[in-house]
């Protein structure tokens, strides 16, 4: 008996020795290491547009949607009591191409990929399989609707299939609106959010910018029903809609985070194509200068006649030089109208102009195959290809006004603001991630394949960029709500889809 006891003791000692062989941290990281603070993530609803939907590479596609910032956030929230997080279904995007069919007709493009056999970004081959007419009639936690402006979230019929053809409805919302008359905000509220993120407002100014400023600045017109798609929203309309959204979201005491509108002119869509990309040989230079001699002569006459200032005459004069670095020629509707004299409103671009990304595959092409009619050189670029300084000013003013409104309304509700405007500004010079990597606001190149944060559309972040966005929300939530949520590591999120062929 005594022997048995001894054996037992020996075994116990041995077991203890082996158990102590297991390394134990002083403070072991478990889900319990994190906390929600004053926030309640049991029903998290994300309100917004394409940036919230996980839109990238020009569309929403099945694998890309997983990297929407609300979905990234929800995984962190899940550690501290976050509930299920649902996103609109893309199960029907069977080939992971993105894009929509309406009936049998493709109405939006497939996702952009890099095709190394041609070098550039292009839509992936294939026909979309997601159909706008396949109605899910479900409210989701992610209520980011690509294309939505602030006032759209309140508009009944924005999810009515019948309105898609006329542009009255949004195909993304049509797919999941709970009824044809439902509003985005109304559907969102059916989820009874305890926590929300609200990042709406970009499109109230972004579409104007993307269109090269072809829309109208509707400041002063308070009837959004009369707006075109590329117009800048009136500040009062914006404030009214934003207020109504925030009233609803906070009506049951939900906490949340609002976000400001990024400085759209800092995104690769506007910063990738230089104003002076044109290389010329001596013969072409001479021919072009001769071709514009009559125009330049006309300017001198107009100046002599007192119709334009010497400054404007100098600004409008078009000259080329042999070699690289010639500025593109553009149409500028803000110049003095001399059409009565037969003088068009041309000038060469300067560093103060922003050329849109699609111009990269337009500049240098010929009109009808005529080698003398070269777009951006002998044929000046139309308004839609370029943001001129007055348009940039209108964009920046509207962005600042909207952001002031966002901050004011959020503050009145006691809701903190993630200043994505400031984040994007930082991205221009570089944001240092916690791991020391520096992320910048450039377009994809093979030298930055592991660090590029914008998707191939040049407007929306890629998965890595959305991770940076998510981290900014986490920072604000941790600080304002005294929560403790872990950050994500942008460097482990994927970048562009790169293929060797596209057939």
């Amino acid at each position, binding site marked *: 008996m005594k022997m048995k006891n001894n054996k037992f003791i020996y075994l116990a000692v041995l077991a203890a020795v082996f158990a102590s062989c297991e390394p134990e941290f002083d403070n072991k990281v478990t889900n319990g290491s994190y906390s929600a603070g004053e926030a309640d993530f049991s029903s998290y609803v994300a309100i917004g547009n394409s940036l919230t939907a996980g839109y990238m590479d020009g569309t929403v596609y099945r694998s890309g949607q997983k990297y929407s910032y609300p979905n990234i956030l929800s995984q962190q929230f899940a550690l501290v009591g976050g509930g299920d997080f649902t996103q609109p279904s893309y199960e029907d995007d069977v080939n992971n191409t993105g894009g929509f069919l309406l009936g049998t007709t493709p109405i939006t493009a497939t996702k952009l990929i890099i095709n*190394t056999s041609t*070098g550039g970004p292009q839509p992936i081959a294939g026909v979309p399989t997601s159909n706008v007419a396949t109605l899910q009639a479900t409210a989701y936690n992610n209520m980011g609707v690509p294309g939505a402006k602030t006032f759209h979230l309140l508009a009944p019929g924005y999810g009515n299939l019948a309105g898609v053809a006329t542009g009255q409805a949004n195909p993304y919302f049509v797919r999941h609106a709970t009824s044809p008359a439902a509003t985005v905000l109304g559907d969102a509220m059916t989820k009874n959010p305890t926590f929300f993120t609200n990042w709406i407002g970009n499109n109230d100014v972004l579409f104007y910018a993307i269109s090269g400023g072809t829309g109208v600045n509707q400041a002063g017109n308070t009837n959004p029903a009369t707006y075109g798609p590329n117009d800048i929203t009136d500040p009062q309309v914006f404030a009214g809609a934003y207020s109504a959204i925030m009233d609803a979201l906070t009506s049951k005491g939900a906490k949340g985070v609002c976000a400001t509108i990024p400085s759209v002119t800092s995104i690769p869509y506007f910063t990738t194509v230089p104003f002076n990309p044109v290389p010329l040989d001596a013969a072409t230079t001479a021919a072009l200068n001769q071709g514009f001699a009559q125009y330049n002569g006309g300017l001198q006459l107009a100046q002599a006649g007192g119709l334009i200032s010497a400054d404007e005459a100098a600004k409008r004069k078009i000259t080329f030089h042999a070699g690289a670095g010639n500025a593109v020629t553009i149409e500028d509707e803000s110049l003095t109208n001399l059409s009565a004299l037969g003088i068009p409103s041309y000038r060469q671009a300067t560093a103060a102009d922003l050329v849109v990304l699609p111009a990269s595959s337009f500049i240098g092409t010929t009109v009808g195959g005529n080698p003398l009619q070269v777009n951006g050189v002998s044929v000046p670029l139309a308004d839609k290809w370029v943001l001129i300084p007055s348009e940039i000013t209108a964009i920046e003013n509207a962005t600042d006004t909207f952001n002031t409104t966002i901050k004011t309304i959020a503050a009145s509700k006691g809701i903190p603001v993630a200043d994505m405007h400031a984040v994007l500004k930082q991205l221009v010079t570089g944001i240092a991630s916690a791991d020391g*990597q520096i992320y910048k606001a450039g377009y994809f190149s*093979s030298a930055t394949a592991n660090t590029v944060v914008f998707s191939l559309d040049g407007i929306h972040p890629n998965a890595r960029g959305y991770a940076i966005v998510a981290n900014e929300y986490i920072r604000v939530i941790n600080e304002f709500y005294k929560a403790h949520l872990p950050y994500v590591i942008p460097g482990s999120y994927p*970048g562009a889809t790169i293929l060797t062929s596209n057939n």
Partner: protein
Amino acid sequence: MRKLLSLTMMALATSTAFAGGYRVSLQGQKQLAMGHTGVAVVNSAEVLFFNPAGAVYLKDRFTASVGGNALFARTKYQSLENNLRNSTENTGTPISAYIAYKATDWLSVGLAVYTPYGSAVEWDKDWDGAHLVNDIDLKAFYIQPIASVKISDQFSVGGGPIYVSGSVNFNRNVGRSVADEQGNKTDLTIDKSGVNAWGWSAGFMFNPTDKIRIGVNYRSEITMKARNGSATVNQVPAYLSDAPTSPQDIVLGNTTFNANLPLPAELTAGFSVQLTDKWLVAVDYNRTFWNVYDALIVDFKQTPTSQIPQSVNPRNYKDASTYRIGVQFKPNEKFSFRAGTYFDESPVQKGYFAPETPRNDSVGYTGGLTYMITSKLGVDVSFLYLHFKEINASYDHYVEDGNPNVSFGGTYKNVVFSPGIGLSYSF
């Protein structure tokens, strides 16, 4: 028969990491039990490793010690910042064998086989530090003929050439986000076995009285030069396996590699005092010249189907010290009891803590005993418990898109436990 034995021993000789850097201090059951002291201890044939000069003072004409350890090394990693958790558990069976033969009164010869360097770590595949290491297995197997010469009863010298046979297998991901079309992360394995090199060790022993011994031993640096090892890439996306389309584009294909890994020199000095007939105390100081491990540089052979760029991984190790003390209590001819402790300083400097050798400063606790089955044959038992403080550390020199200072860090905690058993025979 003898050949068969040596082959079997080779197969058994797998050693696994712990201790500063990739040094493994498990070179004899008796001395391990005494805190792995021994440069000034003449106890058994294990002295061939600790200080060949001491072999000539062994009393018996023939002395042999063989033994092996079961090594359990566990490391946990966590990051509160990013909610990351991972662990690696590795077992190994390092062995050692020593045979000393007293040819004349003034000359002893011997043969020593031991595995002082090695490292094995296996994290979860594609874990958060996978761009630094998924798994690694380094082995180095030392074979050393030895001569020990007695100059006088007070002074002896000894030493011999070392033949090393080693192998390396190292896998990691080629980037943090590089993946094939299915989203599987792309990885690279370098593998080379049968890497051979030569070195030497030499020491002296001084016995100022019949109770005190002083010893110094030096083991030379040995550079393991892996040449034409295999480099294999896995799960490579098509755009990285076809011909390059831009200056930055490369082809990742299977090729061969060259790399050098230094096994650093080690200087040991110490003394022992026979306090009474029953009590022996030993103190050792080791200095390991780790500063030779400046960087792990892997050169890949450039071929039309593979243009993996040179991989430069700064290590910047510093020379490191170990302080050891051990005691032996021998109440009778049947039993000896031993205990010891040591402090092992890590050669890894701040900002260079790579998860392939996640070792920080440690304190070892050892113990053991010998039971003499007959007057000639004894069985040796030992154990080692190595305690590491948890450490917040990072490796800050990963290169990504031209940025040479991308960091990966967190909190690491290690535990190593190793029971060992051996036989000693002498006549």
